[in-house]
């Protein structure tokens, strides 16, 4: 028996993240989500990075409903040759935006942060060099998201950043949920039915309880 499934369209999201070093630059992570393909696949051709990617997405998705968890994604980088974990926040955001399909109002998002257990965003090393990369390569309107831990130490440098770049310091991934939740408000059909049946079961239980009480005390 030949079993092959043709699936429909894809959504993609790209988030930039700064790379520190001798020549700081902005790298880019792209996540392509395939909403009708549901194997819980995380595909990435850069095999030495796959374990790290799976770990980061495991943290970022830890509070999600099963209906969004198993959407297949492909992860790509404009330049896969980089070190460190500070791309974690950018990856998590791109993954959320791609799977929830939210057309974010921001034309460009730059993010840096180490994503850990319980979706906590930790400070990054080389923050000053990363700010240099953003200052040099980001002249247009953009949203720059970074760890609160770095804000406390680098507040002076942050004030010197281009005024057209909006800044957002966060300590939890959940602080950014508005970026992807705008579309998730349009519930998936399966969620409608789940809510309906939960309501129906609760209503039936309530009626049954009241009836039993009335019979007992009559």
């Amino acid at each position, binding site marked *: 028996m030949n*079993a*092959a499934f043709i699936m429909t369209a894809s959504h993609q999201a790209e988030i930039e993240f700064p790379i520190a070093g001798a020549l700081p630059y902005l790298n880019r992570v792209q996540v392509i989500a*395939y909403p009708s393909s549901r*194997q819980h696949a995380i595909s990435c051709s850069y*095999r030495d990075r796959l374990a790290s990617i799976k770990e980061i997405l495991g943290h970022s998705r830890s509070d999600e409903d099963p209906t969004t968890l198993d959407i297949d994604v*492909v992860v790509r980088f404009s330049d896969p040759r980089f070190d460190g974990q500070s791309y974690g926040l950018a990856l998590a955001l791109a993954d959320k935006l791609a799977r929830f399909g939210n057309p974010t109002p921001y034309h460009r998002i730059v993010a840096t942060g180490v994503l850990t257990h319980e979706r906590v965003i930790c400070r990054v090393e080389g923050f000053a060099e990363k700010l240099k990369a953003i200052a040099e390569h980001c002249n247009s309107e953009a949203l720059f998201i970074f760890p609160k831990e770095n804000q406390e130490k680098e507040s002076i440098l942050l004030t010197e950043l281009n005024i057209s770049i909006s800044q957002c310091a966060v300590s939890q991934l959940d602080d950014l949920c508005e970026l992807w939740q705008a579309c998730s408000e349009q519930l998936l059909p399966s969620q409608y039915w789940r809510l309906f049946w939960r309501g129906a079961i609760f209503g039936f239980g309530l009626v049954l309880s009241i009836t039993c009480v009335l019979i007992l005390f009559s």
Partner: protein
Amino acid sequence: MPNKHTLDLLAVTLAGQAEPAPLESELDETRLREVLTGRSVLAASERKQLLRSPAARRQLYFLADILRAETYARWRQAAIDTELLYQAAASSSVEPLQITSNPYYSLSLFPLDSEGRAWTLYLKLSAQLRQQVITGVRLIDDEEQVWLAGKPDSDGELSGDWHLPGSPIERLRQTKLHLKPL
């Protein structure tokens, strides 16, 4: 990853290499097994020896052949079917495709653009097959072209970009795929 031209140049250089004097001791076979099965990586001194010594490389290839033969034997004993066939009507649309006709592994093809010029392949091994993989796997077609090769991760998953000419969907209509030990 070096390009093909660089690799060809390296192959020619290594093929013409003479054994260094004095002769180096053989590499430890237990260590080589660990490296070939993904449980360890080569130390700097071991990498250096492999680059300098044709005998060390022959030792590695021989051990890789033994491990490959062991894997073939395991797969035969477990009666693992390695063939994957896709039959469908021609379609002009560019969409993801998942082939699940083999109970031991599935192959998904994800388009990376709307024109179908670039694809990524995603191979998922069943739990049973995962236990029978020692060194890695390669997915080849009837013409022995390698579609995907490498060691699946702990989830039995292996991905890679499509690198052969043309569309993988068109190729699938003309050829069968076979999974083999690496």
